[in-house]
């Protein structure tokens, strides 16, 4: 995947509830990503 440009964001426009929500969504997604990773087995060649 091509490395994305860093997003410039402004948190000050969010309400307090939205701030907590955005943090929660980021955390949940990070967790989802970690769990989605595939464990690589020792394989000699491509199937």
């Amino acid at each position, binding site marked *: 995947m091509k490395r994305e440009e860093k997003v410039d964001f402004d948190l000050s426009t969010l309400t307090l509830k939205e701030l907590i929500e*955005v943090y929660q969504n980021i955390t949940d997604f990070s967790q989802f990503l970690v769990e989605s990773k595939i464990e690589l087995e020792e394989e000699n060649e491509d199937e």
Partner: protein
Amino acid sequence: MNNFLEFINKDIEAKKTLISTMPTKTKTNKKKFNETIDDIIERYEEYKTSTRNYLIAKAKSFEVKESTDLDQLTEKLETLENVKFLLNPTNTYVEKMCFDDLLYQINNYDTFNFKSLNEIINGLLDKFEQAGIHLESDDFNYTCYVHEYMTAFLEVRNRRLSSYDKVSEIFEQIYWVNPELIQHIELNFRKLIKKNSRKFNNYILTLQKEVMEKNKIRDYAHCLEKLQDAYIDLNMASKETISDIIAMAKTKELDIEQYLSDSKGRKTAFDSLIPEVTDVDKVAPALEKLKLNILEYQNYLEFYPMFKYFKDEYEKLLTTDKKEYKGLKTIIDQIETKENELEKLNKKIFSGKPGLFEFRSDSALKQLKLQSVLKAKELYELYKTYDIEYFKDKVMMILNDTLTISDVLNLYYSFDYFKKLTIQKVYNITDYDEIIKYSDNFDLFAMNPTNIIITGVPIFSSNNIAKTISNKYRLNSINISEDDLNEDNLKNLLNKILLILRVNKIEKSETTIEKIWFIVQVEKIVAKEIKEND
């Protein structure tokens, strides 16, 4: 970027779609898949750190610091409480010297499995020394066994030895001949406390003069006035602040979610308690008073079994002629007669001087010792009756058909020994720490000069405090029923009142409930992080 939340939500969806369509069949696919995931994780860790730091900084900016230095006011109150304790006209030097507490401990030594008898005996000896009375082994002549034990005890104490092993050995030896040794030590102390009454009274008088002069107090009534003022000052200064509310929200002592404007709990509290009130400020003072009344009523209910016991036990004495009743005098005379008899027996036992156990005939000595122990046993029973009569005498001094709950509180507060005995009996407690807990709570209730309901509630007639409270506050547009004041519903009612008062306080302050909610959420995030990193 205008809205970061929108961006994140869309980005997450896009990334999820992306990774769900990536091939994962081959090892190369899988490797590429994981590389993509790692890139996203890296990016999201950056987002997470930036957002986290922003949240923490923002929450910190919402914190409220209110300095409440209560030390001086608390110290003033404690000093006045000590003065009140010393000036209390209801009790005697026995209670003012706290002998009743130590006698209660030694009296219940077996019941509570106390670890150390030495501590109690040292406590009693300390009290004598405070009043300038240095007891010697010959003062402990209730029985020859008490003398033997206390001689060894005083030797260790006076030489300031760290080990009481030798005393324990002697206790063991005596115990098999005289298992009631502890009871007889108690009786010996009781006798000495009585014998030295003049010295103790003088000591108390000196203390009273000192504290009155130091605190500029004229008399007991003046002390009560000052105490009331000090209580009011402290209550005002220690009123719940916004920072207290934040602290409680953080520790989950209060559920801040319930305080948000769209919460069901908040709506219920307002609608049920003050349905017609538009300006909470107008009912806030009445709600504050109601809160105090409920706390007082809660205390009343907690100690109701003690009041009931008092009523059951002493109501029948209302018809007794106080002048004619000689219960206490009779038992004092009986004790004196028997103690004289015991003293005569002891003189015979001790006359085999110089050695304690040198006696012409061993069996005659044994016989005398046995008689003295039996006499001491009889005296122990007489002292039990004395205790009952002593308290009955104090009750009768104030007994009348308009006696209030407040009078009874003061009576038990003034006589610690009887308060603890009553607690032990009515709550059926056998654990000493539990009794102390009840006793301390009782004292806090009894000492509070802002109690108002119980000062007007007579103990001997039926009364409906719940009805009185609910009627009073309906006049203030506060909608409470007798049922709300039911013991099981009190906590709920108190929570509703606290919620309304706190919401009002927060809304009038520079902060908002949403800000406090935010602080709590950030606190949770940080706590979770700490837990995960542990």
